[in-house]
């Protein structure tokens, strides 16, 4: 098996007649943290949706774990190990935290494994243990983000895609979320694809970065290089 977990080749998508992505190429290496940066409307979320299969690809290929998944229905892609966490699609606010965790374990059939992984979740997020009977909608923003990330631990996740985890969170909570992401990556060597607007925070934990603008990748490279490059100083970013 190659070192690349997720590869996007020449991907183009559109909403009706409006093109959103135009020939995007990118690859996420195993065990790396990869960041996709870009201004509003650059197509970051569309890229995530295309990888998940929520948006149809007009052209190009998506290869996950050496398999072409471009035409695989989205629920199958997800159950094969892509996990997405975002404020918008992470939790079910009207259900209890416990039910949310159960739903996260939808694809885990073995009860022993589930129990073991729940143990790990509570080890990582002790706060969730106290909130089991609470409705997810009553959690704070940070707790909700953690709940949606914790579902990645419950599942046998190969790659965790985070769609703007810092959106709508207080800076101090953002700090906490990113610290946790780093820990998660270090401890479990989890591959993370981070889609962010918060440039500095995102770059601080990642090792490879892409910059997306108007549906095209305009820059790719190691974060150390990216941090110093002129591209991020562009006022549009």
């Amino acid at each position, binding site marked *: 098996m190659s070192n690349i977990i997720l590869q996007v080749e020449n991907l183009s998508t559109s909403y009706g007649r409006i093109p959103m992505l135009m020939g995007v190429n990118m690859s996420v290496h195993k065990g790396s943290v990869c960041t996709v940066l870009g201004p509003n409307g650059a197509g970051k979320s569309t890229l995530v949706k295309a990888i*998940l299969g*929520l948006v149809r690809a007009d052209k190009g290929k998506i290869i996950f774990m050496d398999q072409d998944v471009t035409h695989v*229905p*989205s*629920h*199958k892609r*997800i*159950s094969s190990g892509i996990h*997405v966490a975002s404020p*918008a*699609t*992470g*939790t*079910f*606010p*009207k*259900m*209890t935290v*416990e*039910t949310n*965790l*159960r*739903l*996260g374990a*939808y*694809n885990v059939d073995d*009860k022993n494994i*589930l*129990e073991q992984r*729940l*143990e790990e979740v*509570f080890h990582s997020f002790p706060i969730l*243990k*106290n909130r*089991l*009977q609470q409705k997810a909608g009553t959690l704070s923003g940070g707790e909700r983000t953690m709940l949606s990330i914790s*579902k990645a631990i419950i*599942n046998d996740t190969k790659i965790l895609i985070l769609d703007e985890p810092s959106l709508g969170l207080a800076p101090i909570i953002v700090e906490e979320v990113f610290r946790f992401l780093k820990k998660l990556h270090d401890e479990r060597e989890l591959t993370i694809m981070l889609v962010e607007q918060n440039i500095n925070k995102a770059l601080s934990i990642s090792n490879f970065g892409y910059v997306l603008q108007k549906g095209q990748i305009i820059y790719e490279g190691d974060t150390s290089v990216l941090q110093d490059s002129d591209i991020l100083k562009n006022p549009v970013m």
Partner: protein
Amino acid sequence: MEALKKSVHSPFVIILLNLALGFALYGILITESLVSIGLIIAFIALVLFLERYGIVNEVFDAYNDNKVVALISGLLVILAVPVSLKGNIYIAHISTIAVLYAIACLGLNFQMGSTDMTNFAPAAFMGLGAYSVGVATSKFGLSPWVGLLAGIFVTGIFGFMVGLPTLKTKGYYLSLVTMAIQIAFTQLMNTIRYVGGSDGMSGLTKYSLFGYDLYKRYTFFGIRFAPQVPFLIVCVLFLIAFAYISMRVYHVSYGLSLNAIAQDEIAANCLGINISRQKLFAFVIGSIFCGVAGSLMVGLEGYVGPKSYDFAKSLLLICMVILGGMDNTIGIIVGAVFLSIITEKLRDFADYQQLVYGLLLVVLLIVRPNGILPRRVRKYKNLIRRNAGGKQVEVSTEPTA
């Protein structure tokens, strides 16, 4: 109240409770119009009062903890009620209809309660089941049981076909689609000469079991029973079986994923839930439940016609689900039974029947917007609960900031 909460958990209290519920049901059935409606309102008020102190939930938990006792005593009580009706033809008739509506409502709940897809065509599916029995018995001379099986098959396929457009439509649009299906069904049955057109088919063969007719006056121990009683018992057994299926579906991942789809389709998709399959599942199983209810309805009336399964009947079933409590199997049965009884007992008001009925519904929904027994918060016995252990108690004693 605390003492009451604790005492609920003993098996003896559960048997007593079952007996009390049985007597309450018997009282509601047997008394005259106003007294009966008064009893129903008193029952709802009692539930409301007890729920304020969290006793209703405690009772549900207690039943869960003492499954065997609760089941056996409940079964005996629920089967004693039809027998206790003795020769009362009218009440036996109402009870049978109530039980059959309850089965249809359980089916409708898969779509309305669990998945939040309002289906305005449950009566059409009941009608399909009923017509299957009608055609099988009168045109092919088969046993109505064969008709019932055919009905399951037909409604299942039809449910699948109706489910297909729902994959693309949501909310109001879905409601419109199903409304159109309901109206089209009634109109279609009105025009097809083969199934009797607007007159329908009457004088159909009724169900029999092991050579015994189920719709017949039998005399046991010197008591002449109403002709519906044996059939009512069979219907109650059907209801118990279907209630069990509903509860199982609710508790396994199928029910949970349906709830997830109801709340947020994209989020559910992002957990790897196959949305199309689950929605179709909800439609097919719900349609089959409605179809079986309709098939059994023929055994009571010996008649099937388009007017029995029109839009008004669909609305009635929807009212029962909403009033009883969405996604709560017991609540839906209670809602179906109460509404069926109320409709009948209001006959004394003659011209004002519909007015009083509407008024009652409005008042009930103002008092209990989520139904008599609302949706319960899901609880899990093993796994997480065990892990959480004493931690929860520790937190609850902490002062909240």
